[in-house]
């Protein structure tokens, strides 16, 4: 059997396993979907009520679309981030971490399988939320550049795969608290990346930090495609830079993961379940 076929079977094992987990824990999925949906709606209603809150005339439609686009993009990117960062946490919860780490599957293969699932799952969930949200708000995307949006989304996914790998190290290092720590990483990204407000509203030092977050560029780029109809050609340099940054983050993530895996094997941390 060729090595490639074997590795692809290994990658598919993670896709199938994660799909089965969704099927078996469908109740959680419903709860999680309701939570994400109400979050997106609540944030968008802030935009809807902005005129009433401030007592001034504002372009409510633009604000609503601005917030909704941020909410949906964050929905997708955070799903990618969590699906990958939880690749170890799930094994800890179920107690199967030793079996998976003993199997002849390389970590990049493990990652490929998890990423394929994460992207598919992220797209389906985001479309489901979009489908419900448009029933509440009028989303005017008449002049939007959809092709550019998809390109930016895919380019941004690469970076979030890398960030997910970096965060996946935490449950490996800290069996009991690692999964919760990944929430803190996601919250920081949400704060600094201009998901619901322009980065320029942040204090100066946080704006500097925001420049290090790939999400800042993804969200800015996608907004300019959807709201301002910016052309794909104009966005291409940003998209390529994002892919480049993403590749570097993935490589860095894999290197760090490798070291941490060795440390976990040296110190006996694979055995303990969170």
């Amino acid at each position, binding site marked *: *059997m060729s090595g490639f*076929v*074997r*590795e692809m*079977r*290994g990658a*598919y*094992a993670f896709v*199938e*396993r994660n799909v*089965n*987990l969704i099927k*078996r*824990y469908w109740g959680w999925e419903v709860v999680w979907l309701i939570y994400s949906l109400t979050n997106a709606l609540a944030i968008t209603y802030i935009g809807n009520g902005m005129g009433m809150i401030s007592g001034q005339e504002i372009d409510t439609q633009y604000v609503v679309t601005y917030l909704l686009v941020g909410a949906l993009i964050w929905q997708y990117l955070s799903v990618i981030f969590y699906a990958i960062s939880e690749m170890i946490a799930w094994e800890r919860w*179920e*107690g*199967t971490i*030793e*079996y*998976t*780490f*003993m*199997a*002849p*599957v*390389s970590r990049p293969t493990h990652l490929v399988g998890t990423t394929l699932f994460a992207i598919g799952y992220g797209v389906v969930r985001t479309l489901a939320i979009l489908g419900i949200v448009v029933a509440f708000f009028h989303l005017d995307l008449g002049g939007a550049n959809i092709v550019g949006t998809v390109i930016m989304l895919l380019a941004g996914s690469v970076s979030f795969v890398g960030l997910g790998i970096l965060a996946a190290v935490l449950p490996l290092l800290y069996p009991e608290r690692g999964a919760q720590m990944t929430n803190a990483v996601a919250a920081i990204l949400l704060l600094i990346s201009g998901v619901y407000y322009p980065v320029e509203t942040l204090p100066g030092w946080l704006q500097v930090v925001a420049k290090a977050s790939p999400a800042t560029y993804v969200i800015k780029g996608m907004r300019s495609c959807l709201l301002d109809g910016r052309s794909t050609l104009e966005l291409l340099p940003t998209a390529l830079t994002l892919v480049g940054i993403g590749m570097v983050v993935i490589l860095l993530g894999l290197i760090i993961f490798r070291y941490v895996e*060795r440390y976990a*094997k*040296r*110190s*006996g941390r*694979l*055995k303990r379940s969170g």
Partner: protein
Amino acid sequence: MSTQHSERTNALALDISEVRKVFFRRDRKKGKRGPFARRKKEEVVALEGIDLTVKRGEVFGVLGPNGSGKSTLIRLVSTLLLPDSGTMRVFGHDVESDPFPVKRMINRVSVDAAFFKKFSAIENLLYAARLYGLPASEAKPKMREIMKRLGLEEKTFDQPMEHMSRGMQQKVAVARGFLTSPILLLLDEPTTGLDPHSKRDVQAFVREIRETHGATVLLTTHDMGEADRLCDRIAIIDKGRIVALDTPEGLKNLVPSRNGEPTTMEDVFIELSGRTFEDAEAEEEGS
């Protein structure tokens, strides 16, 4: 590598030399107190100076009380732990520097059968098969055959694992271990907690696998009778050190028979360690 060394290596399924493994645990009683105080770490020697070889096709037992280092030894061979010093080779491949070929040759059944609890036995085994590169078309009939052979009823195959008894789960774990046709099978107390009937089923299957597939088996147990019945050779391990290594008969010959009764493995352990198995376990649990 010399020809002589190469021949020796090829004849050996497992070659462990001078392995030492230490863990550190935080001592709650010692050191500073308070949320930011770093507590002192205490060194716990799990294995010390382990030297053993297992021949191809052999069933090799590691017998010792709880906490004696048996599971640590299995985890080291399984590539789940790294030794602090010493070397381990599986069919000539170094476990630490060349783990991939080792992973393809081994599988492990542990005392605490870990599965995706909401998945069925079939789903869990299919996941395992894919991880080892087996196509589903080959794995599905094979897993059904092994589970039937282990005495599991076909109607249970599609039940969630969480609905199965401990004995049934352990049989699925054994099936998972055999599914990938490992040439070195690591059995870490595979029958602990099983009822006598299930225990016999698993033991019979181990014997069958060895006879029909020529697999090498490294079996840890604290069941003296099991070690005596299944193993070609046995290493008795206590406090992380091998205190004796021989065939079951050879070990029993070390101890003179008392009151005309045949010598048991328990007599051997008492003679070599100076305490009963129960005392040794109580001591390990208390430490």
